[in-house]
C-alpha cells in the first residue's frame, strides 16, 4: 500500500523533507518506523528515540502499535507545544 508520511518541527528539519510517499507492507506504526529508519541515516537518527516522538495515523493520535492497513497518512512529530 502507499502511505503519505509527514514530519513536523525538528523531525521535518532533521529528516530534511516535510513529507514523502512510501510503499509499504507495514502492519503497524512500529513496522513502518523500522522501514523508514532504513531509508537514511537521518531517518534512523530522527526516529531512534521514540519516547520523544508522537505519531498520528490519518490525523488521529496513535501509538506504535496502531495498525496501518487502510491508513493513508502517518505523521511523526515532537510533543506538541501549542497555546
Amino acid at each position, binding site marked *: 500500500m502507499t502511505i503519505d508520511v509527514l514530519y513536523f518541527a*525538528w523531525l*521535518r528539519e532533521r529528516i530534511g523533507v516535510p513529507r514523502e510517499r512510501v510503499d509499504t507492507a507495514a502492519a503497524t506504526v512500529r513496522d513502518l518506523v523500522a522501514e523508514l529508519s532504513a531509508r537514511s541515516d537521518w531517518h534512523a537518527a530522527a526516529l531512534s528515540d521514540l519516547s520523544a516522538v508522537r505519531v498520528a495515523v490519518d490525523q488521529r493520535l496513535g501509538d506504535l502499535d496502531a495498525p496501518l492497513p487502510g491508513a493513508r497518512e502517518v505523521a511523526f512529530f515532537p510533543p506538541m507545544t*501549542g497555546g
Partner: protein
Amino acid sequence: MRVLVQPEPFDAAALLDGFGAGAGAVVTFTGLVRADDGLVALELEHYPGMTEAALTQHAQAAMDRFALTDALVVHRHGRIAAGEPIMMVATAAPHRRAAFDAADFLMDWLKSRAPFWKREIGPEGPRGWVAAKAEDEAALDRW
C-alpha cells in the same frame, strides 16, 4: 461554537462582540508572546487539517462536558512577534464555575495536545524548538 486557525492577527473585540449573549458568565484566556531572553518572535508550525479537526473536537468536548452555551478557539500559526496575542479561548455558560473550568480545560489541552510546535526567534535568528513541559503534561491529569 467557532474555531479559527490562521496566520493573521485576530481582532478579539470583534470576535467577542455578541459572544455569550444570554449566558451569565463569559471567560476569556489570551496567550501573548513574552519577550523573555530577548525573544523577537515565535514561529508556530501546525498540521493543516488535523489542527482544525482536533481543535473543533476539543471545543465540542468542552461544550458537552461543561454544558457551555458557546465556545471560541482562535489559534495563530506562522511568525508571531513578541507582544502579540498568539491564541484566545472564550467560554460562555450560565454560571461562572463552568465557564472558568471549561477555559482552563481547553488551555491545558491546547498546551499539550493541539498539533502546534513553537520555535523561538531571537535577534540572532532562529533558536531551538520549544520543548514540551512536564507541567503542561501533568496539568491534563486534572481532568
